[in-house]
């Protein structure tokens, strides 16, 4: 048993190292003076500087507006996706019509479309509806992969819920909507949290749609990152700084929600006995 435990600890250490080193290096590089970043021998001790972060927020291309666009596009799209997806997921889980499996499969298959092929028809739609280059256009574009995902995950969570509780409420005279809102929904909040965080992450990190559908006023943070790849160089200082800025909010939100998740799941396991 002891050998196993030591082996386990070594394994854990390796896993943590493998996971953390790139992120740590990214953070460190974003704080290093330029010469230390491009030195041929990795520099571990250096005087931290905020010059790269400052550079990002100054000049003609300040990332402030990019950040705002990212927040709006990802945030609003997530809200809509989670909202509509939770409703649809419940509807799907509690229904039993012929062809239900096919509908469920169709919903998932919409998320499988390769982006480069889907871009042109979406482009045509957006042009017709004047959504090109707008933040709302991005929100709608993100819905194309967030919505199916949300429906599917919420469907899984609702399907796991025994209908007996809702049935009991209905017998007591509650409406279907009340049964949903007061009984089913509170029990799947971990699912809502999971869905929300994953939708948020996928939208926030998207590059393909943003690159195609955004205009001068709606560019998002991943686009800002790619703009650091210039004709003559890649500004690693600013790039690692943007990388840190882009990932930080996601990590923070993810970790906050994660605790919710674990509590909710543990609770679920207990009530399932």
């Amino acid at each position, binding site marked *: 048993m002891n050998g196993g435990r030591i082996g386990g600890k070594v394994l854990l250490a390796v896993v943590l190292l493998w996971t953390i080193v790139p992120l740590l*290096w990214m953070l460190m590089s974003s704080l290093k003076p330029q010469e230390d970043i491009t030195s*041929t021998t990795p520099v571990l001790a250096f005087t931290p500087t905020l010059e790269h972060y400052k550079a990002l927020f100054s000049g003609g291309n300040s990332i402030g507006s990019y950040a705002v666009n990212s927040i709006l596009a990802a945030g609003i799209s997530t809200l809509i996706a989670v909202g509509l997806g939770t409703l649809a997921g419940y509807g799907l889980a509690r229904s039993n019509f012929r062809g239900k499996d096919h509908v469920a499969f169709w919903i998932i298959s919409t998320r499988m479309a390769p982006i480069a092929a889907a871009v042109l028809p979406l482009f045509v739609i957006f042009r017709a509806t004047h959504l090109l280059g707008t933040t709302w256009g991005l929100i709608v574009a993100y819905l194309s992969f967030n919505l199916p995902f949300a429906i599917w995950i919420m469907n899984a969570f609702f399907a796991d819920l025994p209908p007996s509780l809702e049935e009991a409420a209905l017998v007591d005279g509650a409406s279907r909507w009340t049964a949903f809102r007061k009984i089913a929904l509170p029990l799947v909040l971990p699912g809502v949290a999971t869905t929300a965080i994953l939708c948020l992450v996928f939208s926030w990190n998207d590059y393909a749609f943003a690159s195609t559908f955004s205009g001068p006023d709606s560019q998002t943070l991943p686009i800002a990152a790619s703009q650091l790849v210039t004709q003559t160089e890649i500004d690693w200082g600013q790039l690692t700084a943007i990388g840190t800025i882009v990932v930080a909010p996601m990590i923070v939100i993810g970790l906050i929600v994660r605790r919710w998740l674990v509590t909710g799941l543990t609770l679920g396991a207990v009530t399932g006995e």
Partner: protein
Amino acid sequence: MATAVERGSTAGTEQRAPARKENRFTFAGRMMAPALIVLALLSIFPFIYIVLMSLSRVGLIGGIDLHWAGLDNWSRLFSDESVGAAWVRSIVYFVLTVGLEMVLGIGIALLVHSLVWGKNLVLSLVLMPMFMAPAIVGLLGRFLTDSTYGLYAWVLRETGLYTGDILGSTTSAFIAVTLMDVWEWTPLIALIVLAGLSSLPKPVIEASRVDGATYWQRLRHIVLPMIAGVVIVALLVRSMDAIRYFDIIYNTTNGGPADATKIVPIRLYETAFRFFDLGYAAAIGLSMLAVSILLANLFMRTLRKRGLAK
């Protein structure tokens, strides 16, 4: 997530209320309607359009023009060696990345699950990579493997393990982009599997421990079968994206060296937006969709067979 016990009770309940079926359907229908309408708008028109494009020659100057070309694009697709080669590479890349992610993800989930203290901290750390934008993972990977100032390149050089340019030779480049993908997405698998592990009924596990089963025996005969459903869900979630994502390769090797990392999505992007051969690109795209659907079908059927489909 649900256990086998719960699922049994669900099946029973549904049979008990046939009288409400009509109401249920309309209510459920109304719940689903908004989402499904939006989804239909965003997927049905594009799908039809892509099919039409694949049967046309698409001109871009002065507006988008579709000129009927019958099955030209499709016959070209099936005789195109370069696309065939790209598929082979895609399959290898898919099997390696998803395979490694599943194995490592399950392993990490088991590891974290077995921790007595520090579980939260370790979990937090382990999950971080999946929150990064794939495009930035690619760029970060490029930074780490750069032969002039990359940290990993330096370590490999100093330890004598590898002195060449990591992204400059075919095998090492392929391995590198595979590992970058594995680094980013293993946490997602670990998270899903961990959720499954966390909902395992403790009494059953305890009983087997009392019975004297070793760790590996418990793992093989009790734990793994019980989380099989969750594992397949994780596999499905990851596979759907693994076929289409190419951000990491795009930002590192962009298909090279010598086409070693040129998987189908890269070929698709190139055909659509570099060569502007949108009809052919539509055909390639539809073939990718077909493969994804086949794969998803396979997984769903497996789930259903085990009585775990929702």
